[in-house]
């Protein structure tokens, strides 16, 4: 038998830990073009366009402020409840959008995935990046209100001196959303039940992610365990600490979140890569 040399090989077995990062790098232009596509086509044929991204967090914050702070009487420290809620919701929204959109990757792109090959992971990655744009719009409105409260009221708000770490927080949030989203998207192709779980699970998750109820209240009521192991809770609490200098920041929480996000992303990538090979037969 002469020695055969082949550059590529398609076979049923693949190495679980071969993540093909080199290939992803070769397709980097595609990543940017997908992001560009999402940005260009975001507001086509809507009347209010980007305004929708402002209306949603604003209205939610107003309602939350009325219900949780005015009616239920939840205290938000020295921070005006509206700003407290808006900061929480803005941060939460990025995670939510990332998770919901990526968890649908295989189902939504069945058409194109069924016709042509490219590293599938490009798709969820592009979602994480293009969602940054929506996040930026929402962050902008948060900053507007923030400045209003700083200059026109004497609420004495100031950001933490660690504000520059905020982007790092977003990175971990993106990693968490991407990781979880890829895990769910890989499972959802076989068991559609998960779609329902995601859509209401994410709503429930919000309430134990410290978006409206501060950690201090959980601690006071002795139900800290509800939020102890939820990395999103730490992310929201830390975000509020960085932006508003309110709330407490725990070293355990940060370490836990970092480790959790990294593991989640790794696990997600592995399971996603395993699924991409044959999902088209199952979907």
């Amino acid at each position, binding site marked *: 038998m002469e020695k055969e040399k082949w550059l590529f090989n*398609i076979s049923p077995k693949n190495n679980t830990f071969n993540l093909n990062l080199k290939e992803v790098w070769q*397709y980097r232009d595609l990543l940017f073009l997908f992001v560009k596509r999402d940005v260009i086509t975001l507001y086509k044929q809507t009347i209010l366009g980007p305004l929708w991204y402002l209306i949603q967090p604003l209205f939610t914050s107003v309602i939350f402020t009325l219900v949780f702070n005015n009616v239920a009487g939840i205290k938000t420290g020295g921070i005006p409840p509206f700003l407290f809620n808006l900061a929480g919701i803005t941060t939460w929204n990025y995670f939510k959008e990332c998770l919901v959109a990526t968890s649908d990757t295989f189902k939504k792109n069945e058409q194109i995935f069924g016709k042509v090959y490219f590293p599938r992971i490009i798709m969820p990655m592009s979602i994480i990046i293009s969602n940054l744009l929506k996040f930026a719009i929402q962050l902008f409105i948060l900053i507007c209100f923030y400045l209003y409260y700083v200059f026109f009221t004497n609420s004495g708000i100031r950001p933490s001196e660690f504000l520059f770490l905020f982007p790092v927080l977003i990175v971990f949030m993106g990693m968490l959303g991407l990781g979880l989203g890829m895990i769910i998207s890989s499972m959802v192709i076989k068991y559609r039940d998960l779609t329902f779980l995601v859509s209401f699970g994410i709503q429930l998750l919000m309430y134990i992610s410290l978006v409206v109820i501060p950690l201090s209240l959980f601690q006071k009521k002795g139900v800290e365990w509800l939020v102890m192991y939820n990395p999103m809770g730490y992310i929201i609490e830390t975000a509020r600490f960085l932006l508003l200098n309110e709330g407490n920041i725990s070293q355990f929480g940060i370490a836990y979140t970092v480790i959790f996000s990294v593991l989640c992303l790794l696990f997600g990538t592995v399971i996603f890569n395993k699924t991409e090979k044959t999902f088209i037969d199952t979907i």
Partner: protein
Amino acid sequence: MMKQQDVILKVENVSKQYRLGVVGTGTISHDLNRFLAKVSGKEDPYLKIGESNDRSTKGTSEYVWALKDINFEVKRGEIIGIIGKNGAGKSTLLKILSKVTGPTRGSIKYNGKIASLLEVGTGFHPEMTGKENIFLNGAILGMTKKEISRKLDEIIDFSGCERYIDTPVKRYSSGMKVRLAFAVAAFLEPDILVVDEVLAVGDAEFQKKAIGKMRDISSQAGRTVLFVSHDMAAIQSLCSRLIVLDKGDVYYDGDVSVGIESYMSSRKTKNNVKLLEDSKLTFNNLFFFKGGKSSNVFKIFESLYIKGSFVYKNNLPDDVKIELFIIDDFGQRITAISSWLSCISFTPKSKNVNFEIKLENGFSIKSGNYSVDILIYDYNKSYFENVLTFELLNDYKYGYLEDIEPRHHGSVYTPNVWKIN
């Protein structure tokens, strides 16, 4: 002996198994069995079973082999045509080649880049302009932005859509979308290009252009093309080698004209009704009648009767519908005679069912050889392939119908009377 560097693609024992039926609660138990076998180091229990992919008979196993132990080698610069009936495994093979899905067994080894030509407009975003879509589509196919920019003018020029290039693709006709899609792929410069029936859309002029381009790709640049089509004329004019697939097997591999010949005669072998049955019913016979006599040869527009009968084995269903499909030499459905389309369904009174259809004006399709598939369905479907063949002849009072070229004129003849001043 073939030199190693000449072979650019090698398909070794490639098999693909599909699971039929619905994915439901049973899925978990199969997954568990599979997992247990894997943990205890045994072979996947479901790989041992499975039948060949014969649509017409109701199989006993939930698993079928869409491809079974396919082997072939492709040399650099070859243009290979792949043909076969529907369900022969062509699409599955292409899917595995283009890495959309993995094989169940076996491997494909290759040197260089494989690119597959997208079907009409897949990967096009309707809201984006033609130019933006060229970039997106090119990138999906594996080009870098730089490469696309360099070839942009050529691509636009080849597509012939220059005027619309800054218009959103949703305003394009389907023909224009194919042109654009093909243009992008044609300038892709892969080592192996996989083309799947895209040329069916687009006018004759563009088809000629596309076929010419494929020939250039292989002869000048030394690239390899795998071309799947039902269009024998295109295959004959383009390909240097032919592979015929049948029920997941390589049925023929070699010279093009010999292959086409044997493929077409294989569809024509059965001349009259044989015993056809599945678990529900036995199909007795199907005859075409003209002037009170059974016949297999008709002229276009000649009125005829179709009579058939079948017997239910056990229970009598209700709401039964019958459909006959007229299939041409290339395996394409040309037309259907359907009780469903005529709003007729019936409940059999006894196990024996006889039916009679009158075609007042006969067939208005091009002359040639046709076969008939029959589908009888209530909640279950009974599908019998190639129940009967017949030949349709020209009637010169309508013109030179034997000159109808399906790629150019379509397959249906429309009666016409001309008056020119």
